[in-house]
């Protein structure tokens, strides 16, 4: 057997791959579920916090900044483990899934709040003044004038950050969630063959490469033309 054959036998073992493909697919489904929930909830919460912050109530803003900085400073894995083992709800069904979902949601909320906020504050004061001078309220100005411009500016950094955080779904394997990496790891320990890991890597590529390409496309399309 040549080295090349041995390499294929180890990492691209067809029998192993066929045997564990259903597991990996099932894991991919879980990954997609967590990722989808995290993206939707994280971005909505981040936007909500940025909007609250734009109202300009000093104590509220201090609280928002504190929460945001907290979740930006802590490693996501620490948050997951903390929620998984630390909160009294452990024992709840699918608690690992929920802990991962909550943790990554908070992290994305924190990072996206900062990005949304930067977008909102980058809109010139004259835009607010022109709109308010025609009788638009604060909220109407925010929704119709400021946000559409701000969101356009935020899309490139937001896409990159969202992808980076969503990849953190792999951390769920640590708290016994059967997502792609979790499934692959247990397959490896059952089969003594790393081929399932190869499948996991390919699975991640299939899931995330389109997102990365999509982000790149958005970035060029959203280049601001004045």
């Amino acid at each position, binding site marked *: 057997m040549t080295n090349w054959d041995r390499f294929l036998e180890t990492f691209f073992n067809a029998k192993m791959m066929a045997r564990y493909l259903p597991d990996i697919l099932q894991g991919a489904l879980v990954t997609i579920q967590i990722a989808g929930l995290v993206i939707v909830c994280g971005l909505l919460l981040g936007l909500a916090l940025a909007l609250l912050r734009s109202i300009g109530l000093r104590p509220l803003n201090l609280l928002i900044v504190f929460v945001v900085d907290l979740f930006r400073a802590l490693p996501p894995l620490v948050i997951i483990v903390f929620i998984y083992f630390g909160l009294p709800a452990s024992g709840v069904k699918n608690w690992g899934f929920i802990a991962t979902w909550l943790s990554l949601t908070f992290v994305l909320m924190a990072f996206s709040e900062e990005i949304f906020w930067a977008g909102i504050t980058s809109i*010139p004061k*004259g*835009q607010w*003044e*022109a*709109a*308010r*001078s*025609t*009788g*638009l*309220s604060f909220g*109407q100005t925010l929704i*119709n*004038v400021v946000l*559409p*411009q701000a969101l*356009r500016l935020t899309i490139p950094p937001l896409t990159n950050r969202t992808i980076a955080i969503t990849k953190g779904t792999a951390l769920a394997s640590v708290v016994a969630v059967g997502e792609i990496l979790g499934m692959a790891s247990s397959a490896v320990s059952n089969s003594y063959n790393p081929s399932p890991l190869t499948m996991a890597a390919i699975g991640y590529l299939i899931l995330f490469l389109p997102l990365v390409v999509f982000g790149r496309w958005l970035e060029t399309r959203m280049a601001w*033309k*004045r």
Partner: protein
Amino acid sequence: MAARPVVEARGIHKHFGAHHVLKGVDLVLAERELAFVIGPSGSGKSTLLRCLNRLEEPSSGSVMVDGVDMLDARTDLNHARQRVGMVFQSFNLYPHMTALGNVTLALRKVAGKSSAEADALGQSALARVGLADRAGHTPGQLSGGQQQRVAIARAIALEPRVMLFDEPTSALDPELVGSVLAVMRDLRQSGMAMVVVSHEMGFARNAADRVLFMDQGLIVEEGTPAQIFESPAQERTRAFIGQIQKH
């Protein structure tokens, strides 16, 4: 008996922290009147205009527009602001909307017009400023002069009782100034009451009823264009007029 003034601002003071920027300014504007405000940079001209629609909160004094107390907490300020059109030096058009979208936004959101009504009113406002054929253009596709005219259309579409212009031509290339002044002259002829802060003395001479000279937060002197430009009573006014006429 004189008719009720369109704008009646009395004893306006404005402090920015320790900085006393307006020191008791009165401004009364009659129907169809055009008041032209001149004065050195930093004398408080913009702040005065911005106190009239409460973009800036006066520290004290009173502001009545068309009989509505702009400073009364019970006044629906957003509603009252439709009665006061404002045009800015930097146009401040919404870059993500077409010219028509810029003009119709407040018609829909504040005046409560349907999209069809707003579009019709917006089109006629754009026609008044000579830009009927630019309705679908975004600000980025328009010249500075055209952008400023869209900004004027955005304000007049709401049928204000008074229009405030804060250096409307200062950001424009010289060859584009004329088109904006022409629109302002038309507005004036239609009987719009206007307060204009500007350095366009030619426009003041043939369109202004009254010229007000501001310095250090006070109206130092006011009179007809001929009085102020030809024979100012105050030394400060004379010095300022002499200075700008050198250019």
